[in-house]
């Protein structure tokens, strides 16, 4: 990868005899949404805290936007935004007062603050909440406010540690839209979550288990490697099943007849796969076609089943 914005090599963290993070390598491309997934206690938060300089690694190096975090932890601060599991708003201060507090620490002048906050307030739909205290806001609004604050100083990399924990499904959807907006503006987003299905919002996904990186790929790459891929069910007229079955086989699908249905599988369903599928099924007056995608939960379970022994380089090969 040319000039990654985050580059970690041999990153480890030990607490006494316990190894929380075990020699992981990470490369994150500029402008992507990078999901760092794993179960509770797998080492996600420890890794993110090392990457942003809140924890000193036991071993390894981190270079963030060209700056060695270990050597110059303060220099990276203006380039990163961070939102932890607990939204870092001061209770007792209104949202506006919190904004002014952090703006003061980042040296944002009053005029500039009005411009920036005005834009952020609209985008994050926080106008109603501006003069409320965080403790009086619903969790979803508090999360949005936390994200808004972490982007106020226009960071190049946004680190989000379990940002959607404790938030309802609707708010989570809205929250991911905001993350994607940030990414569209060129901000690199490094996000940890234990909601595995959220990986599909991301460009790249890494799995950590018991402190070891066991996979690092695109969501599609992971599905292709660690699941049975896509399952396509087609209900067809009895006369055309044999022909369609043969054509699906020639198009790269593994297909079989199950009762009055055809069931086909393919590891990854990219645009070319979809084109081939439509070429085969398009002319048929199919009663219905149903496409099922393997869930990230299935991918993760299979990853664990196949043994966490999969080292990062091997997982990287699955890309």
């Amino acid at each position, binding site marked *: 990868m040319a000039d990654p914005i985050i580059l970690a090599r041999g990153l480890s963290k030990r607490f006494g005899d316990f190894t929380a993070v075990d020699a992981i390598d990470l490369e994150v491309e500029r402008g992507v949404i990078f999901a760092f997934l794993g179960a509770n206690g797998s080492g996600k938060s420890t890794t993110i805290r090392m990457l*942003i*300089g*809140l*924890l*000193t690694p036991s071993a390894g190096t981190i270079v963030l936007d060209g700056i060695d975090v270990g050597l110059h*932890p*303060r220099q990276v*601060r*203006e380039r*990163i935004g*961070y939102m*932890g*599991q*607990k*939204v*870092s*708003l*001061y*209770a007792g201060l209104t949202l506006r007062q919190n904004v002014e507090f*952090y703006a003061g*620490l*980042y*040296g944002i002048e009053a005029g500039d603050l009005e411009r920036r906050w005005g834009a952020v307030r609209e985008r994050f739909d926080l106008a109603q909440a501006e003069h409320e205290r965080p403790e009086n806001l619903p969790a979803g609004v508090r999360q949005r406010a936390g994200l808004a604050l972490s982007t106020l100083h226009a960071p190049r990399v946004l680190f989000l540690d379990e940002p959607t924990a404790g938030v309802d499904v609707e708010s989570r959807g809205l929250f991911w839209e905001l993350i994607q907006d940030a990414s569209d503006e060129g901000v690199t987003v490094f996000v940890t979550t234990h909601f595995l299905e959220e990986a599909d919002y991301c460009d790249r996904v890494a799995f950590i288990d018991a402190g070891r990186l066991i996979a690092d790929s695109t969501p599609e790459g992971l599905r292709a490697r660690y699941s049975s891929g896509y399952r396509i069910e087609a209900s067809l007229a009895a006369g055309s099943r044999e022909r369609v079955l043969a054509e699906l086989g020639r198009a790269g699908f593994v297909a079989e007849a199950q009762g009055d249905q055809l069931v086909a599988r393919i590891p990854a369903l990219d645009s070319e796969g979809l084109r081939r599928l439509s070429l085969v099924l398009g002319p048929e007056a199919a009663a219905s076609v149903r496409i099922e995608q393997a869930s990230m939960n299935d991918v993760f379970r299979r990853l664990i089943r196949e043994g966490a022994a999969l080292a990062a380089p091997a997982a990287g090969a699955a890309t």
Partner: protein
Amino acid sequence: MNARRLRTLVRREVNATLRDPFTLGVLIAVPLVALLLFGFILSTKVEDMRIGVYDASRSSASRRLIADLAASDSFRPRRFETGEAIERALVRGEIGAGLVIPADFERSLLRATAGGAPPELRVLYDGAEAVLAGNAEAFFAGIARATGAQLVASDVTARRLAGAGAGSPAPGGGVGVVTRALFNPSFEGTPFMVAGTFGFVLSFLTTLLTAVSIVNERQAGTFDQLQLTPASTLEILLGKLLPLGAVFAFDVVLMVIAAGLFMGVWPQGSALLFIAISAFYVVFSLSLGLIFSATSATAAEAVQKTVLSSIPTIQLSGFAFPIRSMPLPIQWFTELIPATHYIRVSRAIYLRGAGVAELLPELAILVLFGAFLLGIALRTLERRA
């Protein structure tokens, strides 16, 4: 009552207690330390007190008195050439009391055997150390009167043996003790306690209030966020210390005024100097609170540390119990407690009217303590585990 359930509950509680080294340490150490402090170190008995002696009499009777003082466990006499030298040593804290034996001590003693007025020993105390002076006075008077009685008795016996005849010894043992206190002539306890209370309040309350600040912020997540802003650790530290420092400095002003208006106790020295030194001491105390806070996982742990640290601060700093009455190794240890020096300064300004020049050694020690604790606080906040 179900025995099995009770056993299960008890077992869990015992395991929880034994698993936590801090709680275990508190459970074992606090009773022992309290027992030793109150029973041994903080006894009101006077032991090994340095007493300056100016012997103007230079007689066998005065030498006997000094020898008796030295033989007691209570006093350790040190000779001085003038009464003024004793006063200076008393002010500097080199001695706990002073004794001036008048030139006519032996002659007066002899006259007393014939019914004359008994000789008078002048004893000087630092009135700023009211408790110490009170304790020591009783011990000294006891020894002096016993010695006087023996001297008179031996003189009467000698005269009888010589057939010269004699009157009865003077009542009370034949020796009078005239006590004079420097700086707090009436040995009034209020100025002594008022001046010491500043030390207690500023040592304990400041530490307690700051002890929970960082640990609470850490639990709320705001401290991580703060550390990720461009603010330096020194800025974060001062951002915490200065506002609280200003509040407590204002408290000091209020206390000075309240003590003056309601108790009639005003500083004999410069009130401004006292407030300035107190403000500095507040910043140092707050640093200690921040250290407790930054090294604790919960607010409860931070409070426990504060309370534990307050035990030596209260008991060994001279706030309530005179340091000069403590065993020598403990006296050395008290020098390691910053409150000891602040309380000394506070009483020196309040009761003796001491100025900067006189307080320089104590102030230098306070500055060193302050710099040391601020440095530790800075390092503790900077530490990224």
